[in-house]
């Protein structure tokens, strides 16, 4: 039903006053050229060096322009503040040429010195940036951030002249240009940051260099950006205003979408997915996402210290049933750990997609000394309190019981307690999810290295560590992928984890939205987006 038709009904039904007010509301929420973005949560802040979450990234990527940007269709590097770049033969030195017409929103020119300042700020210990490690790929970045090196001039980036920036890396890093799109490596305006300190991100102070600038920030209500008139590429920008609505309740978000107050939602309630999938109007969106839903297996705890048990658990259930009947959002059953396509890497499918290997799982369990699950201690499955995780855990529990005769106890803990249990390795099997920091297999595989803080399984394998170190120093792209392939092989043999499914992004998008392209990074710069339609 169109809004006009609904309004006719209103005329009949209500007093004139209410109607007049209602029309007012309806038009207010649909100003032409204003994009209303369902953003899920209130951002922690808008300082690119301080924030860590996805909602923050959605906002910041529209407020700041990185050195090298990304094409929203292909995710290939395209000019940002830099117009061109040269890479040395050993792939460790990048020389960027900056555009001369790039300006901050206060009119000041952006120069190479701005990047030097910003990256130094990111790495300065007192900034306490959680994402400082994104600059560890640059020479001496890690030592400086850890306080072992005090001299900032030894950092691997310098301004050759105002429009030439040279960056030296620790190792060839094929995903370096893509990494520049992470908010932690955006430039920040020195004069403004120094003048206002921690208040520089307030609407009255904030200065940025992207297609949009901050206009209004009402906590838990709305963050409103307006078109940046000093942006060098402003003729390409169609929208006048973007409102980010931190609507945490998925149900409310969906209702706001239905009443046309949002152009896109952040998510969709699980139980509404079938309804919208069946809806033929074309607003339902579902696309693969660079993330994996998996379980950690604590290799330090019996009986999970036994490889055969870990293998049996991996083969003894049907991944397809989980995505088909529980999550229902078009997720792909995970047959390896790295989501296929991450930085052009496709791991071989080493795990069964369905229940076809259950017989093999039974054999493995018997070989481990637990035929039919007999004698196997009860296995505790830990997850953080949430309906969605609970449903998956129950399905797993039931499948393992029927297929292998294994008894699984479900344990749910509140978020921080759950994190603490993982850190203390005080669990047997634990739910987890991992979203890639950048478009490369490394962001998935390096967390299984022996000394990685995110290796919550306690997995240690010298050969695995060696392969990833080799990959990090490999100049040849093809060879590098071969190292990753071999590392995946080890991982899928040792199985300190149970990969379950590859994430999808499921949301609603109004048909008025043009220039929005699905991609695995869920990267949607609003610079390219426009609105059509009657409003």
């Amino acid at each position, binding site marked *: 039903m169109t*809004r006009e038709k*609904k*309004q006719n*009904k*209103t005329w009949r*039904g*209500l007093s004139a006053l*209410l109607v007049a*007010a*209602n029309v007012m*509301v*309806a038009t*207010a929420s649909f100003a032409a050229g204003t994009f209303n973005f369902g953003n899920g949560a*209130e951002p*922690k*802040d808008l*300082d690119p060096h*301080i*924030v*860590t979450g996805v909602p923050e990234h959605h906002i910041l990527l529209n407020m700041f322009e990185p050195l090298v940007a990304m094409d929203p269709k292909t995710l290939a590097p395209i000019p940002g503040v830099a117009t061109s770049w040269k890479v040395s033969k050993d792939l460790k030195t990048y020389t960027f040429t900056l555009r001369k017409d790039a300006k901050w929103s206060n009119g000041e020119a952006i120069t190479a010195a701005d990047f030097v300042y910003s990256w130094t700020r990111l790495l300065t*210990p*007192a900034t*306490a*940036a*959680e994402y*400082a*490690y994104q600059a560890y790929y640059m020479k001496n970045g890690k030592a400086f*951030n850890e*306080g072992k090196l005090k001299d900032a001039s030894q950092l691997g980036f310098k301004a050759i002249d105002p429009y030439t920036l040279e960056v030296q890396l620790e190792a060839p890093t094929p995903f370096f240009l893509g990494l520049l799109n992470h908010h932690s490596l955006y430039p920040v305006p020195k004069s403004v940051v120094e003048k206002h300190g*921690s*208040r520089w*991100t307030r609407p009255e102070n904030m200065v940025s260099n992207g297609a949009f600038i901050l206009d209004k920030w*009402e*906590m*838990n*209500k709305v963050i409103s950006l307006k078109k940046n008139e000093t942006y060098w590429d402003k003729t390409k920008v169609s929208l006048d205003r973007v409102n980010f*609505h931190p*609507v*945490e*309740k998925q*149900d*409310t978000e969906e*209702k*706001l979408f*239905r*009443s046309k*107050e949002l152009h896109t939602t952040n998510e969709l309630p699980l139980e509404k997915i079938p309804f919208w999938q069946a809806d033929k109007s074309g607003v339902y969106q579902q696309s693969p996402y660079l993330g994996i839903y998996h379980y950690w297996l604590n290799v330090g705890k019996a009986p999970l210290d036994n490889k055969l048990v870990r293998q049996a658990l991996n083969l003894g259930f049907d991944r397809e049933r989980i995505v088909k009947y529980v999550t229902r959002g078009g997720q792909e059953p995970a047959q390896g750990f790295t989501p296929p396509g991450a930085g052009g890497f496709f791991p071989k499918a080493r795990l069964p997609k369905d229940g076809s290997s259950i017989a093999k799982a039974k054999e493995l369990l018997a070989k481990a000394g637990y035929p039919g699950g007999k004698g196997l201690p009860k296995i505790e499955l830990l997850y953080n309190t949430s309906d969605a995780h609970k449903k998956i855990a129950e399905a797993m529990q039931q499948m393992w019981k029927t297929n292998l005769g294994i008894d699984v106890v479900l344990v749910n803990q*509140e*978020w*921080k*307690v759950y*994190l*603490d*249990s993982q*850190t203390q390795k005080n669990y047997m099997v634990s739910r*987890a*999810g*991992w979203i890639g*920091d950048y478009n490369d297999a490394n962001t998935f595989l390096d967390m299984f290295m022996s000394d990685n*803080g995110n290796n919550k399984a306690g997995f240690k394998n010298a050969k695995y560590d060696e392969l990833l170190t080799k990959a990090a120093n490999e100049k040849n792209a093809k060879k590098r992928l071969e190292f990753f392939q071999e590392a995946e092989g080890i991982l899928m043999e040792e199985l300190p984890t149970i990969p379950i499914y590859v994430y999808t992004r499921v949301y609603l998008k109004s048909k008025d939205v043009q220039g929005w392209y699905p991609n695995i990074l869920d990267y949607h710069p609003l610079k390219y987006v426009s609105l059509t339609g009657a409003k």
Partner: protein
Amino acid sequence: MILKYLLKRIAVLVPVFLFVVTVVFFMIRFAPGGPFDSEKRVSPEIMKNLQAKYHMDEPLYKQYFRYLGDLAQGDLGPSFKHANRSVNEIIFEALPVSAELGLISLTWALLIGLAAGLVASMRPNTWLDYIPMSFSLIGISLPTFVIGPVLVLVFALWNDWLPVAGWNSWQDRILPSLTLGMAYAAYISRLTRGGMMEIRSQDFMRTAKMKGLSEMQVVVRHGLKGGLLPVISYLGPALAGIITGALVTESIFHIPGLGRFFVESAVNRDYTVVMGTALLYFALIFFCNLLVDIVYAFLDPRVRYE
């Protein structure tokens, strides 16, 4: 007399306040996990930088006294979750929203609850009693997360009369305040009925009736003052509760109020916000109850400030 009473109440308040500060401070600190734990773990070096920034590398007793010192100056500290924002700012922004929502809801609750309760008490055990009391039972039993979405469905989606959610225009206030006020209205109607029924059987009420006053006059002039005492003592904690405890309503209607901070801060181990909101709740309860006591003394001659 009343001044002396107030001073006495406030004198008791100080040690209780300190006790609450201390208990909450240590309880939240001893809960597992901390503000900087996340799914992606930060390296020990970066963790060190973070802890230094928030003085969390100091021994706990030092942090406690630092907190007390800041508190004495009215500074509730910086939020961990909302970086670059102070707890004072957060409360300053969200409290007016919650207060507005709370007061409108309570107004609904009083209008509906008093009317229903009075009618019911005047005609006990007739349909004028059964109908409102059945509704109030439904109101008490139906949680806000059912009432809210149903109201939205009927008034905002099926009929485009009111907004789905938001907090901009006056229309935005109607559905959430009704949702939130409903349960309170139900309680108030039951308390009103109970209070009035008790009063009706008193001798002075019978006397008033015998004097030849109309039923309405009896109730308004003689009954209300005593019959509403239970409602008034309920209003104190209700006001504090309705301002701080509207989490569900706030989230259904996407309202930028305080309620969410109570829950969210505990989940995030946002220590300073936990403290700030807990102390605010404490202060609200104290003042609302004080207010009730004062009103009580005016209404009930048996209560004296002793």
